[in-house]
Structure formats: structure tokens, C-alpha cells
């Protein structure tokens, strides 16, 4: 097998990897906000559910969570999980990353001084105006470094989709490597992840610079 063929076969996997990455962010970032609000809720039941959610999803391996998400419908309800593989990957990743984002958001929100809320309240801002205009923009800036870390980890974590035999770049690479007794697919996969992360780091830096107009 030539290098070009390998690259071609692996490129579909690369697209799928990018798909996992993008969809995970799209679902986990807003979901994380919900979990963060639940975690900060004054209602003790809601707060404890969120606390347990975060603790379990951060305290068990993502690989195990993927298996549970994929196979649970079958073992619990005897459901047919044939066409469910991709959805399971995305659900598993989104649930897991939401827990991490929730803690990052919570840290960011709790770091905003009480005086910001009080100044806004005296000026007559509503609660939602205060959150959207005063709190959230400052939180976004504060949590940027932590979010960048998480996003870079996600690029690498996408390879865990192999657990469900989802044909992303790493899974395909391993298959080709075994069939061709070649080391090259791993090199290709490594370079791919590295470039993907360089792109992520570049984009995040642009965001960080954009928010650097104040301190």
C-alpha cells in the first residue's frame, strides 16, 4: 500500500474525528452551562444531582462511559443499537465534557466579585441583563485558558471513540497498521493530531487576544 492510499483511507477517519470534536463542543459547552447553574442552584436536590453528575463523570474513565452509553439501551431495554454507534459516541463525549466545562464555568462565575452584581442591581439591571452583559463577558475571559486546555484534551480524547469501533482516524490507522505491518499509519495519525491541536491553539489564541483589551 502506498503512502498516498494510506493517507486517502485515513482521511475519511480524519473527517469523522473532526466531526466528533465539533459536535462534542456544540453540545457539551451549553450543557455544561446548565450543569453549572444546577450545581450553583439554591435548591439542594438539584444542586446535589449536579454534584453527583460531575463527580461520576469526572471520576470514571471516559472509555467506560462510552461503553455504558452505547450498550445500556441494549442491556436495559433490549433495544437494537445497530445504528446508534455514532450517536453514542457524541452523547458519551458531550456528557463527559459537559461535566468538565461545568466546573470551569462555575469557577469562572464564582470568581466575579459580588460588587459587580451590586453595582448592576443599584443601576436597575435585571438579573438576566446582569448575567448576560456584566458577568458572562468577564467569565468568558477568565476561563479562556482552562477552556483551551480542555479543548486540546478533547482533540486527543476523540481517539477513545475506537472503544465503540467507530471508524475515526485512530481506529482506521490501527487497522491499516495491523494489515500492512507498517508503522506509517501511526505517524500519519500523530501528525494529524498534532496539526489539529496547533490549529486549535492558534484559534484559541485569537480569542484570547480579542478579549485582552481590558484587564
Amino acid at each position, binding site marked *: 500500500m502506498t503512502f498516498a492510499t494510506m493517507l486517502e483511507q485515513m482521511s475519511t477517519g480524519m473527517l469523522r474525528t473532526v466531526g466528533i470534536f465539533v459536535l462534542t463542543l456544540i453540545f457539551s459547552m451549553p450543557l455544561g452551562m446548565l450543569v453549572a447553574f444546577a450545581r450553583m442552584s439554591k435548591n439542594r436536590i438539584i444542586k446535589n444531582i449536579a454534584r453527583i453528575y460531575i463527580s461520576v463523570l469526572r471520576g470514571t474513565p471516559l472509555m467506560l462511559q462510552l461503553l455504558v452509553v452505547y450498550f445500556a439501551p441494549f442491556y436495559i431495554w433490549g433495544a437494537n443499537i445497530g445504528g446508534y454507534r455514532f450517536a453514542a459516541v457524541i452523547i458519551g463525549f458531550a456528557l463527559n465534557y459537559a461535566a468538565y466545562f461545568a466546573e470551569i464555568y462555575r469557577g469562572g462565575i464564582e470568581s466575579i466579585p459580588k460588587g459587580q452584581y451590586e*453595582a*448592576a442591581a443599584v*443601576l*436597575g439591571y435585571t438579573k438576566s441583563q446582569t448575567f448576560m452583559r*456584566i458577568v458572562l463577558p468577564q467569565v468568558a475571559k477568565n476561563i479562556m485558558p482552562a477552556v483551551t486546555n480542555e479543548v486540546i484534551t478533547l482533540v486527543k480524547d476523540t481517539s477513545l471513540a475506537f472503544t465503540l469501533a467507530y471508524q475515526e482516524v485512530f481506529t482506521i490507522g490501527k487497522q491499516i497498521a495491523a494489515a500492512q505491518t507498517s508503522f506509517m499509519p501511526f505517524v500519519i495519525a500523530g501528525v494529524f493530531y498534532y496539526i489539529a491541536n496547533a490549529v486549535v491553539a492558534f484559534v484559541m489564541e485569537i480569542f484570547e487576544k480579542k478579549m485582552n483589551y481590558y484587564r
Partner: protein
Amino acid sequence: MKILEINNCKKQFGDLEVLKDISLSVEQGQVISIIGPSGSGKSTLLRCATLLETMDGGDLIYLGQYAAKDDGNGTAVYASDQELKQIRMNFGLVFQNFNLFPHYSVLKNIMEAPVLVQKRDKAEVKAEAMELLRKMGLEDKADAYPYQLSGGQQQRVSIARALAMKPNILFFDEPTSALDPELTGEILKVIRDLAAEKMTMVIVTHEMAFARDVSDHIIFMDGGVIVEQGDPQQIINDPKEERTKAFLSRF
């Protein structure tokens, strides 16, 4: 005309009685200074007056409109959120630590609430904001961000921000306490100018000479009660109560 009236205000944090039966009334154009040792409840009183804290008991009345009314059994019953929203437009508060919005330029800090909350015309608000900045000697700082300003400049912006709402009464909670001593003068001058324009103000301060010169009335608080109040000259130069004397001897 009575701008603010507080009757029998009581406030407790857990077992700690912070305000025990405080009453106070402010006429239009009056400047009242509140002095007293740290922990005596001065900030809590301002926070109750500005609806940042809820009183346990007592009345809180702005221009005849009840924000809170004592039910007769010592429990303050607050007006509806809708009414409170309207009542809030009567007052402004200047904090010890300025609490400017760091992600907004000076101009946006001043302009956003009048435009967003009071729904006033943006161009008009901008013109007024620039005028306020001129008054504060900050016309060249409109596009600066708070972190680029000195503490004294930040506090002047926060005063401008409060004034832009056209409040009927302005509260100050130790407006110079977070400033280097050489910067307190510029803030005190701004407040003096406002007093000269007959702005109604309640000022918590540790600047005794300033309080004596600028106020129409001084209140000395200690342990959650008003120990002594009256004419500024008399309170500062010739206090009657032992606790006032002891407090003033520290300055």
C-alpha cells in the same frame, strides 16, 4: 420635600443585631454624613436603603412611596418587584471599591444603564455622559478602560455613572477609603461641588473635617444605633456623648 424616610429599621445577620431601630429622614438638597467606628452598621444601613439588603423591620420610603412598610409587628413588607424597580430609579450608590465594569470603556460604564434600563435616547445620554466627564475632569478618558485609570479617576467615573441615572439622592459608602491619601482630595472636591449644586446626599465617611464642612447634618452611629446626631459643628467640635467623644478623639 422629603426624599428619603427610614423608620425603625432593624437588621440582623443570624444572631448579630446590626441595626437596632434606626430612623432617618433626608430632605431635598440636604447633605447628611454618617460617621462611626468600623462594624457599627453604616454600610448595612446604606445597603438597606439601596435595596441591596432587606430590612427585617421598619419602613423605607422614597418620595412618599413605600419600598418597605412595617406591618406593625416589626416585620418589613416589601413592595412588588415592579414597584421596587421604579423606586430604585430614585437613588444611586457610590461604592468604596468603585465597582466599575472592567470590560466596558468609561463612556459605556456611564451610558449603558440610562440607555438599557431607563430606555433613554442614546445620543442624548451620550451628550450628558460627556458633560459629566467634563465636570469630572475626565473628558479625555471616555474611551479608556477602568484598569487604565488611577483609583481617584475610577471613583470619579463611578460617581458620573451614578449621576447619569439622574437620581434624586446619592449615597456614598466611604468613597475615599480605598484611595491613596493624595487622591482623596479630588473625590472630596467632586462631592463638595455636588453639594454646592444642592444634590441630595448621604455620605458615610471617615473624613471628619470634610463631613463637618460639607454636611447639613451629621449622624454618629455605634453598635447599630444612632448615638448622637445634629449640627456638624456641634457634633465634630463639641460632642455631647462619651462614645462620640471617644470616637472623635482618634482623629
